[in-house]
């Protein structure tokens, strides 16, 4: 059971990283144009 002492913090930190990444995407306006971003990947240039 001692492994829990390592594994629980690890899982929390990994989850926290995901949360921070998500908050960053919200702050940098990445949800303002979901359809446009989906379509842009089909553009040849830029």
């Amino acid at each position, binding site marked *: *059971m001692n492994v*829990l002492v390592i594994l*629980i913090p690890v*899982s*929390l930190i990994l*989850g*926290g990283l*995901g*949360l921070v990444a*998500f*908050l960053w995407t*919200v702050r940098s306006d990445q*949800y*303002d*144009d*979901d*359809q*446009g971003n989906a*379509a*842009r*990947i*089909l*553009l*040849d*240039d830029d």
Partner: protein
Amino acid sequence: MTAACAACSVAPLAEETAKGRAQQFALPGIHCAACIGKIERGLASLPGAGTVRVNLSLKRLSVSGPAPASRILTALSDLGYEAYPLDTEAMARAHDSEGRTLLTRLAVAGFAMMNVMLLSVAVWSGAADATRDLFHLISAMITLPVIAYSGQPFYQNAWKALRVRRLNMDVPISLAILLAAGMSLFETLMSGKHAYFDAALSLTFFLLIGRYLDHRTRSHARSAAKELTALEVPTAQRVEGESLRSVRIDAIALDDELQVLSGGRMPVDGVLLSDTALLDRSLLTGESAAQTIACGDRVQAGEINLGAPLRLRATAVGEDTSLRRMAALVETAENARNSYTTLADRAAQTYAPAVHLLALIAFLGWFFYDGDVRHAINVAIAVLIITCPCALGLAVPAVSTAAISRLFSAGVLVKHATALERLAEVDHVVFDKTGTLTQPSVVVPAGVSAKQRDIALSLAQHSAHPLSKAVVTALKGATPVFLTDLTEHPGHGIAAVSAGVPVKLGRGAWLDADFDGLGLRIGTAPALPFEVPDALRPGVTEALAGLDLPAEVLTGDAPAPAKLLADRLGLPVRAQARPEDKLARLDALKAEGRHVLMVGDGLNDTAALAAAHASIAPASALDASRNAADVVIMTDGLESLPLILRIARATRDLSKQNFSIATIYNIIAVPAALAGYATPLAAALAMSISSITVLLNSARMRSVK
């Protein structure tokens, strides 16, 4: 500031670039990646254009840099796209910080729910004693701060309702979240077996999804309304000497002389220079009757000119106008629920008291049965958690979000939050004729002299009536002459004086001629008839074929063309209906118990659009009508009309199905909870399964054809 020189028109734009604000345009016609590429590449080469960015979800274009708006518009129309400039001020205020906060709360709740769920799974699969207590303790440390942060929207709404001694959906939600967390903390400290931390968090998470979707729907309706406002007055007509010049609203200076067309809004506050004017001041005063004012009276930005074109001198511009000061109040009015009770409200009204009663019964029942307070409280809280409306909170928002984005991609703006529910109840359709079902086209007879053409064009230029616009199109190339004493007689025509001779453009009867249609009369010479063949608006035949409701046409037109249309469309037509007649007809239909959908575009329809159960206006409609309508069709044709009604009905049906699903789940789960069998595992399963079923059911909106 006088802007007679070319350099001055650059100044405000340069100022704007310095502030870093981009110009915005509405692009109703874009739909795919190819459009984005074409526009962004096409404009990149435009001199003065900085960053060019197309937003496909909002169908908007923003261009930074000093390139003039007119140049961008020309470039866009060369590329084959229709575009409208948007008022940057109005769009800047549209920025949505509330949605962002909700999304952050949602993300935090989701993160916490997943972590606590991992720990709970360990407990459910058999962790015992010290390990279980440790897991519960870690769960508590994650849960408590998160529900304090993420649950705030629910607590605030619940408190608002409780303060005025009322119950809403948020009261049982807040109680369930707080009690579940509190009780679980107590159980954790007492080394108890069951903790509901995961239930408290998944409640918060699922309900925040519903809240976020609901917010998106509302802010969509708001931004649709805002986009239309922004469309309306991006420019004003400034009088410079004897000519008119289009200038941006933010370039108007104090004491500028401006002209406002019939049906247009006052761009700024000012003093009337014309002799008299007829105004609709309802936006600012709520007074719906038109008011006549005289020279020297004050006019306020946002008031609608119902009469002839008028002139005014600006006395307050920019942020000082009464319209801008009213903007915040108008927004609140838009948000406020009107008298219409939505499906979700009706569900909440029966639901909230029932849940509290059930929990109380559970508590009292168990307390008197075995006298164990702790157990009785546990069961009561389990009842609150189990009945808690995860699925109910998602039932309506999930469906209406899908419906509104579906309609938006078909070029339809839903302006009002309850519009879809009201549209679903419609059982009778009333159409306006001119401008809605038909588009006027004017044929100028061959014998008309150049001077007559010039006068007809000048008269028509001063009116926003669709026929006048058609005259302007037909007379392209003529040179306008200077007119004085312009008066518009709504329903009749427009009169003025040109070089001392009275000139009139309007109905035959009003011109004392022996024909019914449009004509031009100069001085005492006999009136010249203009041929006005009614062209059906594109898509009308398809729209009527797809319509499964009784429909009729009310028109201010003469009986003969009305009869022609009636034969062509096979609909009953009432001719020569004045605005009061239209209103009276709507009232009569309402008295018969019918829910009327009004489709109209003109000044004479505005009252009817506002009075009908639901209303639709085409984008070509007058400003006043677009404001009064619930839904605006942004495309040229009317063919999306049956689709709007089908989607509205599908929205209602799917919402009701969702409520049924939630109820069925409650019927199964509540007895189990009352009997004391609702373990944290059962609660988590039931909550997730019902929410997912409801979301999946809402996705069926995609298949509505």
